[in-house]
Every structure is written in structure tokens, then in C-alpha cells.
């Protein structure tokens, strides 16, 4: 009987796997201790949670003001503010895309020399590293309350993310076409237009759609720092301890996010 020869380096591979396992366990353990994870507290939290939920449920779904509550009902308010949240997200993504479009090509390692793509990449990373909430606080201070600072915050954050993802798409584009067009004497823009763009345009569209759907979630949260939209009203109702109205707002936010996500998934599927 012929036995296969022993796999070379098998012992070493097992050692490497054990090492990875040990490191992951150590890091997770460190996090467990650091975050004061406590399962018994979680188990005993049921009554608190029930109390909170009982205040929230059922959501206030009245459409017309009543004698007892003569102001605009939350559902009607939500219907009006959904538009603002959508607008913040759409315009913010658009402005971000505009800037990221140019920067993405410049940040692609295969398209530009290192003294261009390196600084551009670093800049994109810096833009990404600032949390949207912090950006929003900054712009609220700069241009005042309202949806406008939200648009700016979303735009700046989107530049960082989209620019990086655009660059990655360009970097994975097939290179032969670029050289072929270089050999006909095309300049840089022409090569980008005819060798790279046809390869990445669909992915770009898909990334933009994905970004829109993430930005809707983001812009809903931005309300907490004074940017208009659904989040603003969640915060307002919470401060007034009107939890049933909070629930209404949260419900509408969830529905919008799910709807946009589904639409974006459907369109992206077509794009492929």
C-alpha cells in the first residue's frame, strides 16, 4: 500500500492556528473585562426593559390632533420630517460623491505616482476617522442648527469612505487595457475614461447606493445634535418623556431605512 508522504510544515501550521486562537481569546477577554460585561445583570434586566417598553407601546399612531393633545401628532410630524432626513442623506451623498469621484482616481495606487496617491489616501483616511456626530457638532457650531450642517457632515464623511472604496475598485481593475490605451498615445484622463471607467462604473453606482442607504441611518442619528430630521424629534420627544411618540418616530425611521435598503439592494442587483 502506498501512503501519501506527510504534509510538509503541518506541525508549524497547527502552532500558528493555536497562536491565532490564543491571541483572539486574549483580545476578547480584555474587552470583556474592560466593558464590565455582566450576564447576571442582563438576566435580571427583564423588568426594567418591560417597564420601558410598556411606556413606549403602543406607538402613538393618531393622525389628527385631539382635544386632549391639541398639537401636531407624532405620526404626522414624522411624515413631514422623513423628507428632511431623505434630503439630508441624498444631498450629502451627492456632494460627497462629487468630491470622492475625483479623489478616488487620484488615490488609486495604480493610476497615480506615489507622491499623489499617498497624500490623497492619507487625507481620505483622516476624513473617515472623524465620526459623523463630531462633524455634525462642528458644522452646527459653524453654520447653525438645521438640516444644512447635517448635509455637510454627511458629505465630508462620505468623501472619506467613497474615495477609499472608489480607489480600491480602480486598483482591482484589469491593467492590460490601460497599457493598450497607453500604447495608442492616450493621455491620463483618456486612459481613466476608457480603460478604467467602463470597468468600475457599475461598482461605483453600487457603492453610491449603498452609501445613500447608510447615510439615511446616519442622518437619522444626527438629529440628536440639533440637525433636523427624524432624529431631532426622537430627541425632542425623549426629553419630554413622551415615549409613545418616540416609538412612532423610531418606527417610521425603521420603515424608511428598510425601504431604502430594499430599494438599494434591488437596484444594485440589477447593476451586476
Amino acid at each position, binding site marked *: 500500500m502506498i501512503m501519501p508522504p506527510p504534509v510538509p510544515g503541518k506541525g508549524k501550521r497547527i502552532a500558528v492556528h493555536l497562536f491565532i486562537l490564543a491571541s483572539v481569546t486574549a483580545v476578547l477577554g480584555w474587552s470583556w473585562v474592560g466593558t464590565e460585561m455582566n450576564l447576571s445583570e442582563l438576566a435580571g434586566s427583564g423588568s426594567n426593559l418591560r417597564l420601558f417598553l410598556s411606556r413606549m407601546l403602543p406607538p402613538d399612531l393618531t393622525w389628527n390632533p385631539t382635544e386632549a393633545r391639541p398639537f401636531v401628532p407624532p405620526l404626522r410630524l414624522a411624515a413631514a420630517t422623513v423628507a428632511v432626513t431623505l434630503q439630508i442623506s441624498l444631498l450629502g451623498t451627492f456632494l460627497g460623491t462629487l468630491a470622492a469621484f475625483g479623489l478616488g482616481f487620484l488615490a488609486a495606487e495604480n493610476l497615480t505616482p506615489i507622491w499623489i496617491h499617498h497624500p490623497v489616501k492619507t487625507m481620505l483616511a483622516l476624513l473617515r476617522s472623524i465620526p459623523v456626530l463630531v462633524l455634525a457638532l462642528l458644522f452646527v457650531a459653524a453654520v447653525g442648527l438645521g438640516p444644512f450642517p447635517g448635509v455637510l457632515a454627511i458629505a465630508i464623511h462620505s468623501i472619506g469612505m467613497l474615495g477609499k472604496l472608489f480607489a480600491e475598485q480602480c486598483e482591482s481593475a484589469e491593467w*492590460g487595457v490601460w497599457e493598450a490605451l497607453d500604447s495608442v498615445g*492616450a493621455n491620463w484622463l483618456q486612459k481613466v475614461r476608457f480603460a478604467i471607467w467602463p470597468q468600475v462604473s457599475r461598482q461605483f453606482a453600487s457603492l453610491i447606493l449603498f452609501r445613500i442607504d447608510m447615510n439615511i441611518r446616519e442622518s437619522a442619528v444626527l438629529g440628536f445634535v440639533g440637525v433636523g430630521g427624524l432624529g431631532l424629534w426622537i430627541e425632542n420627544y425623549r426629553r419630554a418623556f413622551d415615549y409613545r411618540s418616540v416609538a412612532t418616530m423610531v418606527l417610521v425611521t425603521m420603515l424608511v431605512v428598510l425601504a431604502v435598503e430594499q430599494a438599494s439592494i434591488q437596484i444594485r442587483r440589477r447593476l451586476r
Partner: protein
Amino acid sequence: MVSIEHLEVRYGKNKPAALSIQNLRFEGGERVAVIGSSGAGKSTLLRCLKGYVQPVQGKVEILGCNLFLAPRRQRNRVNRKIGLIYQQFHLAPRMTVWQNVLCGRLGAARPLPSLFGYFSPRDRRIAWEAICEVGLTDLAHQVAETLSGGEQQRVAVARALAQRPSLILADEPVSSLDPLRAAEVLQLLSEVQKHHENTLIMSLHQPRLAKAYAKRIIGLREGRVVFDGPPESLTESKMEGIYGGKNLILFDDHATTGSG
């Protein structure tokens, strides 16, 4: 037209020379096949002529322009006169045959309008002539990727023709095609070369095809020219010198009676 002197190319400092050519000249209107086993330096030679490979030393002069020393502008001008055809076609993805062939005019077209797909009537006429020449008029508005391998290579030939090249370099143009398509593409390249009286240098894997379609054959071995002459003088012993092996079933003398 093309003159190479004391050319030496190395990939890596301590590696042996990938290409080492003392003296090689190509005149205008020549149809040359470069043969040799894998790694003999065929591709390196062609890429060197396009300036894509930087030699350690030596001089390459094309159309009176020293390829590695001339100012950038002059190099670009010469670059545009050299068409390149690849084994893998390298057509612009998701674009039609027509758009791909127009790409051949990019070097000559006005940059800004070309980005939006606008080309001058002259550019469009030249591109259309190229499409007619390779016989793809019926498929002009099909997406190039959807065509067969042989047709795609025709598109690539048309794109190179749209450059109005003085020199066409074909780097294993038929290696990914079946024998019939291969013969068709080589036939096309030969006709095109004869018609435009430009210079065609192609690297081929099959000596049989080289003998059938080239007027001059250059045999490379380990980066050196070991054979340079007309197809008739490429005897079996010379073949052994190029490929370093006996009993080459590929070397089929009966198949050498192709077009001259």
C-alpha cells in the same frame, strides 16, 4: 526604421540578461516573426521597442528617435506611431467595437472632446476604414467582449490600424486562438502589413506559423539572437539551436507552404 545596439535587459540585479542583443535592424516594410521558447526574450524584445521595458544599457532607435533618451514629447509622438497587439486583446470593457477602434485615435484626437466620445470626422473616417479593413462592419455596434476570440483580436488589429502606425508589434497575437482563427488573424496581419507597407514584428509560439506568414525570422534563445534569416533557411538543425531540443513535432515542413 528600427535599430537596436548593444541592448541589454535584466529583470533583477543578479539575474542573467533577459535580453542581450548586439545589433539588430528592421527596415520599413519588413514582416518579421520572433520565435523562441518561453522566456527566451520575445516579449521583452517587443516591449523594449515600445519603451515599456527599461534596458540596463544599449540604444533603441525607432523612426530616428532614441527611445530612452529623447525628450518626452518626441517619445510620445513616436509612441503613437507604434501599434501594439496583445495575446489577450485588452479591449476596453463594455464598449462596442466602434468605440474600441475609436480608442486607437485617442493619441491624435483633441483630448477634451474625446473624453465625452466626440471625435473629429477625420478620426471617425480613419477608424471606420480600419473596421472595414478587418471586416467587422457588421459587428461594429456590438459590445466587443461578446465577440469570439478571433473577432476580438480583429478589433485589436483595427484599433492599432486606427493609429496609422508605422510599426506594428504583435506580442503572441494568436496564442489564445484556435488554429483556424490563428491562421485568419495572421493572414489579416500580413495583408494589412502589405497594404500599408508598414513594419510588422510579431512574436509567435509556433515556428510553423512563423515560416508561413513572415518574410524574416528571428530566433531568440536565452535573450540572444541565434537565428536571423528568411524562412527558407530555417532548417531543422537551426530549429534545434533555437529551441534546444530534438525531434520537434511542431516543426512540420509540409505546412510551410502558406502565403508568402
